[in-house]
């Protein structure tokens, strides 16, 4: 199910807007996946593309302005172009699949395109033309771009003959090199000036047409607004017959139409309506296309590569190597850049503190705003890297192979095969990992993956584990020959992975239970990724992160700063007086709102073995988990610059005692605390990105609630269970 405010929007509500907001003509670029559609879109729009969401769904809507060259027929024509997500057909089962027809007909708040540019892969002509037939049936003006004409080689169809068969203008292009693009531009400009509507001569059985007629009578008025000819009515009726079902997840289908479709289906239950409709379209294509070209043979190169990459031994070896590179790049290669950003913002903060007069405003600027911007930018290196690698994997065709290789494993966990790379990325950081779930089409697959990624041991948890393990488990301690410190670290990784996989299994059978969708996976031919496309996608993703999730992370940082800084203690000692400053910081944190929250929380967290100081640490860690370390530094009077290796901080943790004289930090408490950090959703940036990716507060709310509950229950069990068996 989908949620969110935009759901109320109905098919064709209000008059469809003609053209773009700007008054420029609008062109929709449509096509099967892997046809080079986006490359062609980039060719047309240059670097001027904007990315947003389609109304009501979190699916990318790329749009941009193109200046169409007109071969001496006047100055370039400015048009608005938008990229419709790749699809094999217009018929739909979900809100995501509905985008194609909504975008083509200008329904649900989409601008109505004046022309549909369909990009077809010349090497997969018949299957690509199925979609063309469906679009032509709707009676919209169409221009065909016969793309990847170079790959088709001798089997390449003649664009003119193809155009004549379908009654549209067809231009052969090679979007990668830009060949044919100029001709395409002038053809599109000419078609916009004189729109022509033609219908393919698909022969449907009379019986089927009668059924379609009955469905057409129940079509809502708004669907027919403007173009109410019989052919459009029949096409929409056929769309409804192949799309509307009892269990579909379509948005904006009136009840009366649903009833009529069910009635007609019932009346025709001895027949196979889907096969009649689809068979007639393929019948038309199969009857006419062989005259035009020799069928393209599967590329030998791809077959040869697959022999290695899908081989039981070499295939998995390559897979592991590729995944290692992805993991290593996020975990290690991004590190210098992250360190630099942190240093830069640290230095900027120090400089501002020095030049600005001391006071609340300076603190706000330094700790709230500069710190907040730093908190946002620090994610950029990993986001850029992950999307660069994902772009390469996707465009080369390897990402589909990952899904193919891992399907067996992922399916048993209820996850999509494509969830593998995002889950793996979660070991580095949940933010880019959650953004990477967009490579999955279905909303349920995406949600399920997003809900378990934050359980993976991200790199921000490591300083917390290092501090606790270092303080409470001496390096000399060994279990057999294995040092306990190292063992615990490995155990935390194993624990988080197991919990994430179990959580996927449980959530997939409960909260996110959905129809078991059979796998249909296309394994596209291997192609050399186009660097400019990959880089452009990477920038677009990163910009979206900065503008949308970034503002929320910044706001949260300022709020959290206020929480931990007010009310203020008077008489701050000078920064250079280190011991006095540390004591003042400690006292002022204790009586701040954050400190009070920690104390208020104490009864709730006491059963986990935590005191109020840990409570304050947990509140502070909301900014980012590793902030727990510096918050503890302040609470224990070591100063906010303490890191996880700080020996003074470790000593103070060990020395801290409860009123009864027993140590606050027993190994059992440390264990309970690590379990809590492994499971709790202590990260505002994760919540911010989930909010952006799901377009609402419902899923981040659920994520926070379920992870925090899980963390409390498991930590409780660990601590109380440990005490019962005499470990505490």
């Amino acid at each position, binding site marked *: 199910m989908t949620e969110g405010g935009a759901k109320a929007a109905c098919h064709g509500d209000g008059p469809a807007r003609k053209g773009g907001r700007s008054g420029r003509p609008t062109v929709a670029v449509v096509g099967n996946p892997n046809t080079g559609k986006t490359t062609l879109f980039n060719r047309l729009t240059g670097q001027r593309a904007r990315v947003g969401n389609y109304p009501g769904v979190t699916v990318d809507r790329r749009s941009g302005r193109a200046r169409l060259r007109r071969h001496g027929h006047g100055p370039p024509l400015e048009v608005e172009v938008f990229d419709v997500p790749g699809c*094999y*057909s217009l*018929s739909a*089962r979900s809100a995501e699949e509905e985008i194609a027809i909504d975008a083509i007909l200008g329904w649900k708040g989409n601008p109505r395109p004046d022309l549909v540019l369909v990009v077809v892969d010349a*090497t*997969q002509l*018949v*299957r690509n033309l*199925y979609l063309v037939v469906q679009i032509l049936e709707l009676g919209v003006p169409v221009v065909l771009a016969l793309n990847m004409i170079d790959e088709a080689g001798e089997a390449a169809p003649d664009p003119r003959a193809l155009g004549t068969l379908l009654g549209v203008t067809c231009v052969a292009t090679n979007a990668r090199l830009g060949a044919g693009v100029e001709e395409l531009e002038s053809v599109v400009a000419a078609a916009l000036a004189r729109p022509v509507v033609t219908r393919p001569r698909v022969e449907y059985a009379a019986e089927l047409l009668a059924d379609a007629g009955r469905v057409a009578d129940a079509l809502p008025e708004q669907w027919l607004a403007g173009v109410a000819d019989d052919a459009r009515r029949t096409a929409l009726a056929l769309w409804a017959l*192949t799309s509307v*079902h009892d269990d579909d997840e379509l948005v904006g289908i009136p009840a009366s139409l649903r009833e009529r479709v069910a009635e007609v289906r019932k009346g025709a239950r001895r027949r196979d309506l*889907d*096969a009649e409709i*689809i*068979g007639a379209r*393929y019948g038309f294509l199969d009857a006419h296309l062989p005259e035009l070209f020799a*069928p*393209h*043979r*599967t590329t030998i190169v*791809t077959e040869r590569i*697959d022999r290695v990459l*899908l*081989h*039981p031994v070499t*295939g*998995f070896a390559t897979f592991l190597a590729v995944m290692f590179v992805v993991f290593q790049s996020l975990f290690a290669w991004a590190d210098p850049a992250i360190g630099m950003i942190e240093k830069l913002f640290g230095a900027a903060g120090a400089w501002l503190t020095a030049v600005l007069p001391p006071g609340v405003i300076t603190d706000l600027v330094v700790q709230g705003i500069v710190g907040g911007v730093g908190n946002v930018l620090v994610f950029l290196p990993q986001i850029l890297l992950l999307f660069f690698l994902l772009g390469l994997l996707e465009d080369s065709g390897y990402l589909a192979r990952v899904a*193919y*290789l891992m*399907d*067996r*494993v992922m*399916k048993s966990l209820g996850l999509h095969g494509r969830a593998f790379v995002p889950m793996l990325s979660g070991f580095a950081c949940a933010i880019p990992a959650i953004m990477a779930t967009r490579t999955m089409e279905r909303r349920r697959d995406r949600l399920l993956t997003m809900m378990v990624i934050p359980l993976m041991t991200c790199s921000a948890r490591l300083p917390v584990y290092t501090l606790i393990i270092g303080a409470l488990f001496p390096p000399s301690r060994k279990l057999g020959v294995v040092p306990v410190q190292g063992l615990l670290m490995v155990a935390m990784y194993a624990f988080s992975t197991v919990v994430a996989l179990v959580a996927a299994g449980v959530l997939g059978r409960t909260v996110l239970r959905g*129809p078991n*969708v*059979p*796998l*249909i*996976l*296309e*394994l*596209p031919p291997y192609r050399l990724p186009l660097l400019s496309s990959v880089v452009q996608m990477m920038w677009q993703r990163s910009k979206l992160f900065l503008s949308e999730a970034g503002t929320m992370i910044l706001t949260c940082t300022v709020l959290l700063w206020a929480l931990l800084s007010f009310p203020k203690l008077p008489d701050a000692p000078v920064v250079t007086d280190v011991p006095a400053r540390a004591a003042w910081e400690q006292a002022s944190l204790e009586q701040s709102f954050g400190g009070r929250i920690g104390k208020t929380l104490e009864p709730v967290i006491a059963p986990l073995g935590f005191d109020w100081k840990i409570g304050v640490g947990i509140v502070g860690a909301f900014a980012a988990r590793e902030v727990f370390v510096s918050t503890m530094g302040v609470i224990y009077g070591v100063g906010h610059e303490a890191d996880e290796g700080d020996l003074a901080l470790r000593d103070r943790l060990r020395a801290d005692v409860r009123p009864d004289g027993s140590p606050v930090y027993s190994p059992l408490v440390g264990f309970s605390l690590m379990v809590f950090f492994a499971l709790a959703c202590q990260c505002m940036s994760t919540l911010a990105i989930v909010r952006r990716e799901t377009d609402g507060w419902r899923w981040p709310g659920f994520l926070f609630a379920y992870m925090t509950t899980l963390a409390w229950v498991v930590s409780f069990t660990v601590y109380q269970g440990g005490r019962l068996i005499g470990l505490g």
Partner: protein
Amino acid sequence: MSGHDAMVTTLSNLPLRSRAKILAVGGSPAFRRRLMELGLVPGTPIEVSRIAPLGDPIQLVVRGCRLSIRRKEAAELTVFSEDPRATGGLGCGGCAA
């Protein structure tokens, strides 16, 4: 069933690198509709070209395009095979002739 060289069986019974012709597409309405829209309409030649290293899914070549589906769903596709290695026939194509 062995001994006949042509038979009606399911796609999941086809041996590797075996060619057949699609007779009927079964399965859930959404699944079969999507497959047919990808060109797997009755009468289309189909080949099982590869099996994933973990045994599932299988890779098909249809109309020059590589598609992958799981064995469970492949069992819902009825095909006509002339491969003597095909097993578990649903009927005998050769007898009728």
